[in-house]
Protein backbone atom coordinates (compact mmCIF):
# COMPACT_ATOMS: atom_id res chain seq x y z
CA UNK A 1 0.00 0.00 0.00
CA UNK A 2 2.77 2.40 1.02
CA UNK A 3 4.71 1.46 -2.11
CA UNK A 4 1.73 2.30 -4.31
CA UNK A 5 1.27 5.65 -2.57
CA UNK A 6 4.95 6.48 -2.95
CA UNK A 7 4.84 5.45 -6.61
CA UNK A 8 1.95 7.83 -7.19
CA UNK A 9 3.73 10.57 -5.22
CA UNK A 10 6.81 10.14 -7.39
CA UNK A 11 4.89 10.24 -10.64
CA UNK A 12 2.87 13.25 -9.59
CA UNK A 13 5.60 15.32 -7.97
CA UNK A 14 8.80 14.43 -9.75
CA UNK A 15 9.10 17.94 -11.22
CA UNK A 16 8.35 19.58 -7.87
CA UNK A 17 11.18 17.48 -6.46
CA UNK A 18 13.60 18.44 -9.22
CA UNK A 19 12.61 22.11 -8.87
CA UNK A 20 13.32 22.00 -5.13
CA UNK A 21 9.66 22.72 -4.41
CA UNK A 22 8.80 19.60 -2.43
CA UNK A 23 8.79 19.42 1.36
CA UNK A 24 11.58 17.53 3.13
CA UNK A 25 9.41 14.56 4.15
CA UNK A 26 8.04 14.03 0.65
CA UNK A 27 11.54 14.41 -0.78
CA UNK A 28 12.71 11.56 1.43
CA UNK A 29 9.78 9.36 0.40
CA UNK A 30 10.33 10.11 -3.27
CA UNK A 31 14.08 9.43 -3.07
CA UNK A 32 13.50 6.20 -1.18
CA UNK A 33 10.93 5.01 -3.71
CA UNK A 34 13.09 5.94 -6.72
CA UNK A 35 15.93 3.88 -5.25
CA UNK A 36 13.70 0.80 -5.29
CA UNK A 37 11.43 1.29 -8.31
CA UNK A 38 13.13 0.71 -11.65
CA UNK A 39 10.67 2.85 -13.67
CA UNK A 40 10.67 5.77 -11.26
CA UNK A 41 14.45 5.63 -10.92
CA UNK A 42 14.82 5.79 -14.71
CA UNK A 43 12.31 8.63 -14.94
CA UNK A 44 14.08 10.61 -12.28
CA UNK A 45 17.50 10.12 -13.88
CA UNK A 46 16.15 11.00 -17.32
CA UNK A 47 14.35 14.14 -16.18
CA UNK A 48 17.40 15.24 -14.18
CA UNK A 49 19.46 15.05 -17.37
CA UNK A 50 16.73 16.81 -19.36
CA UNK A 51 16.70 19.79 -16.97
CA UNK A 52 20.48 19.92 -16.89
CA UNK A 53 20.67 19.92 -20.68
CA UNK A 54 18.02 22.64 -20.91
CA UNK A 55 20.03 24.83 -18.57
CA UNK A 56 23.04 24.36 -20.81
CA UNK A 57 21.07 25.88 -23.69
CA UNK A 58 21.30 29.27 -21.99
CA UNK A 59 24.79 29.82 -23.40
CA UNK A 60 24.73 32.92 -25.60
CA UNK A 61 24.07 32.20 -29.27
CA UNK A 62 25.43 35.50 -30.46
CA UNK A 63 28.91 36.93 -30.12
CA UNK A 64 27.83 40.55 -30.55
CA UNK A 65 25.88 42.25 -27.81
CA UNK A 66 22.55 43.86 -28.69
CA UNK A 67 23.23 46.71 -26.26
CA UNK A 68 24.70 49.19 -28.81
CA UNK A 69 21.64 48.81 -31.06
CA UNK A 70 19.23 49.36 -28.17
CA UNK A 71 21.14 52.44 -27.00
CA UNK A 72 21.14 53.85 -30.55
CA UNK A 73 17.34 53.48 -30.81
CA UNK A 74 16.89 54.94 -27.37
CA UNK A 75 18.94 58.03 -28.18
CA UNK A 76 16.89 58.65 -31.33
CA UNK A 77 13.73 58.67 -29.28
CA UNK A 78 12.36 62.18 -28.75
CA UNK A 79 12.17 63.13 -25.08
CA UNK A 80 8.74 62.62 -23.56
CA UNK A 81 6.98 65.51 -21.82
CA UNK A 82 7.46 64.00 -18.34
CA UNK A 83 11.16 63.55 -19.05
CA UNK A 84 11.53 67.18 -20.14
CA UNK A 85 9.74 68.30 -16.99
CA UNK A 86 12.30 66.40 -14.92
CA UNK A 87 15.02 68.52 -16.55
CA UNK A 88 17.61 65.77 -17.08
CA UNK A 89 19.96 66.23 -20.01
CA UNK A 90 20.30 63.43 -22.54
CA UNK A 91 23.66 61.69 -22.95
Amino acid at each position, binding site marked *: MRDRLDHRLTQRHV*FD*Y*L*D*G*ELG*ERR*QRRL*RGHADLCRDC*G*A*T*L*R*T*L*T*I*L*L*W*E*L*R*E*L*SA*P*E*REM*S*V*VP*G*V*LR*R*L*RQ*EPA*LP*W*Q*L*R*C*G*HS*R*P
Partner: protein
Amino acid sequence: MAAPLRALQAVSEAFASAGEGRASARAAWQASAHEASRHPSGRRVVATPPATDEQQLIERAQAGDQPAFEELVRRHADRLYAVVLRYVADVEEAEEVTQEAFLRAWRAISDFEGRSQFFTWLYRIGINEAKRRAERRPAPTTVSSLEDEPLEDAPDWSEAPALRAEQGELRRELERAVRALPVDYRIPLILRDIEGLSTEEAAEVMGLGEVAFKSRLHRARLAVRRAMDEYFIEANR
Protein backbone atom coordinates in the same frame (compact mmCIF):
# COMPACT_ATOMS: atom_id res chain seq x y z
CA MET B 1 30.30 27.28 -9.40
CA ALA B 2 26.84 27.10 -7.83
CA ALA B 3 26.13 23.86 -5.97
CA PRO B 4 23.20 22.72 -8.15
CA LEU B 5 25.31 23.26 -11.25
CA ARG B 6 28.22 21.40 -9.69
CA ALA B 7 25.94 18.50 -8.89
CA LEU B 8 24.46 18.44 -12.35
CA GLN B 9 27.91 18.58 -13.85
CA ALA B 10 28.72 15.48 -11.83
CA VAL B 11 25.72 13.80 -13.44
CA SER B 12 26.88 14.82 -16.88
CA GLU B 13 30.43 13.66 -16.29
CA ALA B 14 29.25 10.32 -15.03
CA PHE B 15 27.04 9.88 -18.09
CA ALA B 16 29.80 11.09 -20.36
CA SER B 17 32.37 8.54 -19.26
CA ALA B 18 31.69 5.43 -21.27
CA GLY B 19 31.96 2.16 -19.47
CA GLU B 20 31.37 3.40 -15.97
CA GLY B 21 27.84 2.21 -16.29
CA ARG B 22 24.76 2.60 -14.32
CA ALA B 23 26.28 2.57 -10.85
CA SER B 24 28.23 5.79 -11.27
CA ALA B 25 25.35 7.50 -13.02
CA ARG B 26 23.12 6.51 -10.15
CA ALA B 27 25.62 7.86 -7.63
CA ALA B 28 25.86 11.12 -9.53
CA TRP B 29 22.11 11.44 -9.75
CA GLN B 30 21.79 10.87 -6.04
CA ALA B 31 24.43 13.55 -5.40
CA SER B 32 22.43 15.85 -7.61
CA ALA B 33 19.20 15.09 -5.81
CA HIS B 34 20.81 15.70 -2.42
CA GLU B 35 22.28 18.99 -3.61
CA ALA B 36 18.89 20.02 -4.93
CA SER B 37 17.32 19.23 -1.59
CA ARG B 38 19.84 21.37 0.23
CA HIS B 39 19.10 24.30 -2.05
CA PRO B 40 15.35 24.79 -2.03
CA SER B 41 15.46 26.99 -5.10
CA GLY B 42 17.39 24.29 -6.96
CA ARG B 43 17.98 26.85 -9.69
CA ARG B 44 20.87 28.19 -11.66
CA VAL B 45 22.08 31.38 -10.03
CA VAL B 46 21.00 34.25 -12.21
CA ALA B 47 23.38 37.17 -12.24
CA THR B 48 20.90 39.72 -10.97
CA PRO B 49 22.54 42.94 -9.83
CA PRO B 50 22.27 44.02 -6.19
CA ALA B 51 18.71 45.18 -5.58
CA THR B 52 19.59 48.49 -3.92
CA ASP B 53 21.91 49.48 -6.74
CA GLU B 54 19.31 48.57 -9.33
CA GLN B 55 16.64 50.34 -7.32
CA GLN B 56 18.66 53.55 -7.43
CA LEU B 57 19.03 53.27 -11.20
CA ILE B 58 15.28 52.74 -11.59
CA GLU B 59 14.47 55.74 -9.40
CA ARG B 60 16.89 57.92 -11.34
CA ALA B 61 15.42 56.70 -14.64
CA GLN B 62 11.95 57.46 -13.34
CA ALA B 63 13.17 60.99 -12.68
CA GLY B 64 14.09 61.26 -16.38
CA ASP B 65 17.79 60.36 -16.09
CA GLN B 66 18.45 58.58 -19.38
CA PRO B 67 22.04 57.47 -18.56
CA ALA B 68 20.62 55.59 -15.58
CA PHE B 69 18.15 53.81 -17.87
CA GLU B 70 20.98 53.07 -20.27
CA GLU B 71 22.79 51.27 -17.46
CA LEU B 72 19.67 49.12 -17.05
CA VAL B 73 19.83 48.41 -20.79
CA ARG B 74 23.46 47.27 -20.43
CA ARG B 75 22.49 44.92 -17.62
CA HIS B 76 19.43 43.31 -19.16
CA ALA B 77 19.39 43.66 -22.96
CA ASP B 78 21.36 40.54 -23.86
CA ARG B 79 19.36 38.39 -21.48
CA LEU B 80 16.09 39.67 -22.87
CA TYR B 81 17.38 39.10 -26.39
CA ALA B 82 18.23 35.46 -25.57
CA VAL B 83 14.66 34.87 -24.37
CA VAL B 84 13.05 36.63 -27.32
CA LEU B 85 15.25 34.79 -29.83
CA ARG B 86 13.64 31.50 -28.85
CA TYR B 87 10.23 33.00 -29.42
CA VAL B 88 10.53 34.81 -32.75
CA ALA B 89 11.57 33.77 -36.24
CA ASP B 90 15.15 35.04 -36.54
CA VAL B 91 17.96 37.09 -35.03
CA GLU B 92 16.97 40.34 -36.75
CA GLU B 93 13.44 40.15 -35.45
CA ALA B 94 14.71 39.26 -31.99
CA GLU B 95 16.92 42.34 -32.00
CA GLU B 96 14.03 44.55 -33.16
CA VAL B 97 11.77 43.15 -30.44
CA THR B 98 14.48 43.76 -27.83
CA GLN B 99 14.92 47.36 -28.97
CA GLU B 100 11.17 47.94 -29.04
CA ALA B 101 10.77 46.43 -25.57
CA PHE B 102 13.33 48.83 -24.11
CA LEU B 103 11.72 51.81 -25.84
CA ARG B 104 8.37 50.82 -24.38
CA ALA B 105 9.97 50.31 -20.98
CA TRP B 106 11.60 53.76 -21.14
CA ARG B 107 8.31 55.41 -22.09
CA ALA B 108 6.54 53.61 -19.26
CA ILE B 109 9.28 53.61 -16.61
CA SER B 110 7.35 56.12 -14.49
CA ASP B 111 4.54 53.50 -14.22
CA PHE B 112 6.86 50.83 -12.82
CA GLU B 113 5.79 50.50 -9.20
CA GLY B 114 8.41 48.04 -8.02
CA ARG B 115 5.87 45.37 -7.07
CA SER B 116 7.82 42.93 -9.22
CA GLN B 117 11.50 42.78 -10.05
CA PHE B 118 12.55 45.08 -12.88
CA PHE B 119 13.60 42.25 -15.18
CA THR B 120 10.30 40.38 -14.78
CA TRP B 121 8.50 43.60 -15.74
CA LEU B 122 10.87 43.97 -18.68
CA TYR B 123 10.48 40.34 -19.79
CA ARG B 124 6.74 40.79 -19.78
CA ILE B 125 7.02 43.83 -22.06
CA GLY B 126 9.39 41.91 -24.35
CA ILE B 127 7.21 38.82 -24.55
CA ASN B 128 4.08 40.89 -25.20
CA GLU B 129 5.90 42.66 -28.01
CA ALA B 130 7.05 39.32 -29.48
CA LYS B 131 3.48 37.99 -29.22
CA ARG B 132 2.11 41.04 -31.00
CA ARG B 133 4.46 40.41 -33.89
CA ALA B 134 3.84 36.66 -33.91
CA GLU B 135 0.10 37.26 -34.26
CA ARG B 136 0.72 39.12 -37.52
CA ARG B 137 2.51 36.11 -39.02
CA PRO B 138 0.81 32.97 -40.32
CA ALA B 139 1.01 30.13 -37.81
CA PRO B 140 4.15 28.00 -38.30
CA THR B 141 3.58 24.54 -39.67
CA THR B 142 6.29 22.87 -37.60
CA VAL B 143 4.64 23.14 -34.18
CA SER B 144 4.50 19.74 -32.51
CA SER B 145 1.48 18.44 -30.70
CA LEU B 146 1.76 18.30 -26.94
CA GLU B 147 2.38 14.59 -26.67
CA ASP B 148 3.37 14.30 -23.05
CA GLU B 149 2.73 10.62 -22.43
CA PRO B 150 6.05 8.79 -22.26
CA LEU B 151 6.74 6.29 -25.00
CA GLU B 152 6.29 2.66 -24.03
CA ASP B 153 9.91 1.90 -24.77
CA ALA B 154 11.23 5.24 -23.51
CA PRO B 155 14.98 4.98 -22.94
CA ASP B 156 16.74 5.71 -19.66
CA TRP B 157 18.86 8.67 -20.75
CA SER B 158 21.64 7.73 -18.37
CA GLU B 159 22.17 4.74 -20.64
CA ALA B 160 21.70 6.49 -23.97
CA PRO B 161 24.92 6.26 -26.02
CA ALA B 162 23.88 9.19 -28.22
CA LEU B 163 23.93 11.46 -25.17
CA ARG B 164 27.52 10.57 -24.50
CA ALA B 165 28.75 10.67 -28.05
CA GLU B 166 27.24 13.71 -29.69
CA GLN B 167 26.77 16.64 -27.34
CA GLY B 168 26.60 19.12 -30.22
CA GLU B 169 23.95 17.18 -32.06
CA LEU B 170 22.03 16.61 -28.85
CA ARG B 171 21.98 20.35 -28.24
CA ARG B 172 20.62 21.01 -31.73
CA GLU B 173 17.92 18.37 -31.28
CA LEU B 174 16.97 19.85 -27.95
CA GLU B 175 16.76 23.35 -29.47
CA ARG B 176 14.55 21.91 -32.20
CA ALA B 177 12.29 20.19 -29.68
CA VAL B 178 11.92 23.39 -27.65
CA ARG B 179 11.24 25.49 -30.74
CA ALA B 180 8.57 23.02 -31.90
CA LEU B 181 6.51 23.51 -28.72
CA PRO B 182 3.37 25.62 -29.04
CA VAL B 183 4.24 29.14 -27.95
CA ASP B 184 2.13 29.12 -24.77
CA TYR B 185 4.15 26.13 -23.58
CA ARG B 186 7.51 27.14 -24.98
CA ILE B 187 7.77 30.39 -23.02
CA PRO B 188 7.29 28.82 -19.56
CA LEU B 189 10.03 26.33 -20.35
CA ILE B 190 12.36 29.04 -21.65
CA LEU B 191 11.84 31.27 -18.63
CA ARG B 192 12.05 28.56 -15.98
CA ASP B 193 14.42 25.95 -17.35
CA ILE B 194 16.66 27.86 -19.73
CA GLU B 195 16.74 31.34 -18.19
CA GLY B 196 16.57 30.07 -14.64
CA LEU B 197 13.77 32.27 -13.29
CA SER B 198 11.95 30.96 -10.24
CA THR B 199 8.44 29.55 -10.72
CA GLU B 200 7.01 32.67 -9.07
CA GLU B 201 8.96 35.07 -11.31
CA ALA B 202 8.26 33.16 -14.52
CA ALA B 203 4.53 32.85 -13.70
CA GLU B 204 4.44 36.59 -13.13
CA VAL B 205 6.08 37.31 -16.48
CA MET B 206 3.44 35.13 -18.14
CA GLY B 207 0.62 36.75 -16.17
CA LEU B 208 -0.41 33.31 -14.87
CA GLY B 209 -1.07 31.85 -11.45
CA GLU B 210 1.56 29.38 -10.27
CA VAL B 211 -0.69 26.33 -10.68
CA ALA B 212 -1.56 27.19 -14.28
CA PHE B 213 2.05 28.04 -15.00
CA LYS B 214 3.34 24.76 -13.60
CA SER B 215 0.78 22.79 -15.55
CA ARG B 216 2.06 24.29 -18.81
CA LEU B 217 5.69 23.93 -17.76
CA HIS B 218 5.32 20.26 -16.85
CA ARG B 219 3.51 19.45 -20.09
CA ALA B 220 6.20 21.26 -22.05
CA ARG B 221 8.97 19.33 -20.30
CA LEU B 222 7.24 16.02 -20.95
CA ALA B 223 6.69 16.90 -24.60
CA VAL B 224 10.38 17.74 -24.98
CA ARG B 225 11.30 14.52 -23.23
CA ARG B 226 9.12 12.56 -25.61
CA ALA B 227 10.63 14.28 -28.65
CA MET B 228 14.12 13.52 -27.36
CA ASP B 229 13.15 9.91 -26.55
CA GLU B 230 12.17 9.51 -30.18
CA TYR B 231 15.53 10.98 -31.19
CA PHE B 232 17.43 8.55 -28.94
CA ILE B 233 15.47 5.56 -30.20
CA GLU B 234 16.14 6.61 -33.79
CA ALA B 235 19.84 7.22 -33.03
CA ASN B 236 20.20 3.74 -31.55
CA ARG B 237 18.74 1.96 -34.58
